[in-house]
């Protein structure tokens, strides 16, 4: 059963008089708990469909169904609520909050997601997740003192700490070397499998494909 359905989604960008249709009717179903890798040439629209699915921009046409509810019909506030409690995000750069320690980044996410945990439970949760991504020893550190791989682990921890149903990842390993990339993918796979998180991941790195359950190729604004 598909938890997430992208149905005939179109996206047209306008700049001045010129309008360009980037997505030409994308259909994609994501199965619960699976990792779907989205591959394809640069400029084919992978990031665009991922961000539309994640509720970060609007489609020009079509439907995006999350658990049967059409997100294209929802208000900004409804989408924000879904993003904060049901979705997690990892991007090419980690986008951590510069003035928060590793631990505080995760506590913030728990607050934003409005999880019903008290302070002590939150701290325990954070400690556990940091253990899982191998960053427990750096919980007092600020992002500026972390390496690229370490930052990405923290970003992954932040993306899943509130136990979302969906994880959206746009080239999460693009800024890392091959060894670090594999470590990070290992972590993503373990975590999403343990927590039964459905994952949509854009990548153009062949080495990452073995970590996916399913590979979908995009070309010229359409699923191949």
């Amino acid at each position: 059963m598909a938890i997430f359905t992208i149905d005939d989604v179109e996206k047209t960008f306008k700049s001045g008089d010129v309008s360009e249709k980037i997505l030409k009717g994308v259909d994609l179903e994501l199965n619960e708990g699976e990792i779907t890798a989205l591959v394809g040439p640069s400029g084919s629209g992978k990031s665009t469909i991922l961000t539309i699915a994640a509720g970060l921009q609007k489609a020009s046409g079509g439907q995006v169904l999350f658990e049967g509810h059409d997100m294209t019909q929802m208000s900004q506030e409804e989408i924000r609520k879904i993003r904060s409690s049901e979705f997690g995000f990892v991007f090419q750069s980690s986008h951590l909050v510069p003035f928060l320690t590793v631990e505080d980044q995760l506590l913030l996410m728990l607050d934003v997601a409005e999880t019903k945990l008290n302070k002590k439970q939150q701290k325990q949760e954070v400690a556990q997740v940091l253990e899982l991504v191998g960053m427990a020893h750096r919980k007092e550190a600020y992002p500026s003192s972390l390496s690229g791989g370490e930052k990405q682990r923290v970003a992954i921890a932040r993306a899943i700490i509130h136990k979302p149903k969906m994880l959206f990842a746009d080239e999460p390993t693009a800024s890392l070397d091959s060894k670090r990339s594999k470590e990070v993918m290992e972590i993503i796979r373990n975590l999403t499998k343990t927590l039964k998180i459905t994952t949509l991941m854009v990548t153009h790195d062949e080495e990452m494909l073995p970590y996916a359950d399913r590979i979908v190729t995009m070309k010229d604004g359409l699923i191949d």
Partner: protein
Amino acid sequence: MQMAWKEVKKSKMKFLILGSIIFLVSFLTFIISGLANGLSEDNAALIKNVPNGQFYLNEDAKQTYNLSKIDVDQQDKLLADYKGATALSIQMGFVNDADDKQHSVAFVTSTDSELFPNVKDNEVVLDASLKDDGIKVGDVLTNNQFSGAFKVAGFAEKQTYSHAPVAFISMKNYQEIYRVMEMQTVFIPGSDSPDSVKGLESFNNKEFLNTIPSYGAEQMSLNMIIWFLVVISGMLFAIFFYMMNVQKIGLYGILKAIGVKTSSLFSMMWYQMLLITVVSLVLSVGLSQLFSLVAPAGMPFSLPIETTLLLSVVFLVIGFIGATISGFQIKKVEPLQAIQQGEM
């Protein structure tokens, strides 16, 4: 807002700079306000010491007290009708001491009253500042328009008018010096809504102060400076928060992407603004009060705590508005933009 406080802790320098700007501007504002108030007391303590009430001037006097003459019969009637009413006159003049040194004074005379000293003929009660000029009780002072001489009967604290010390004299002596029988004005204490009196125009204390020519101009310039400073500090707030917000556009985008409410981002900014402003204001209020204790004796400086508190509230409101206007860009931030911009 924990996040707001954590940012202040991490970016100490940035907030310290903002705080010191607010501190300096508010401190400057307090000091100038202290001077304005000090000058105002120096100028017109005589009137400022009088309780609230109404001053009646002749309608023909064109709102200038020393052109006003109140008809004697009308004056008698007013004094009889209103309890505590006083007729008084003020004229600038000089007295000469035993060494023939001239001192400029404001001669004041009044009918029997609790508000002003009652002085016997040929005696004078002087503002205490003349003690610094070496004048003592028992000294004899003269005036070239006056046939007799004034014996200094005593001193009164803080009685100045038009920046000159007041010399209280008797009505008879006053009438001789200035060759008028009528008094300039009748003061009726307490009446907030003045009774209209035929042929007379009423002024409350504040309005009466503004009929002193130097007073209005002086206070206007100083008040201009004060409000300019307040407006400038409001702009500083807006500009500073604007710059801080611009730097944080990427961060705001990410926070929005992970689902932080726009209202939480505003609260974060308000919390920081409030924290910085309150700390800075507490310091500048404290320091300006300290300054008013140690201000040199010759400097007309008077800064009631109520004035600083009132200005502080104005600063808070202005800061709030400045920060909020600059915060509208938070509303506009698109989460996607920030993500695509890459590393902050």
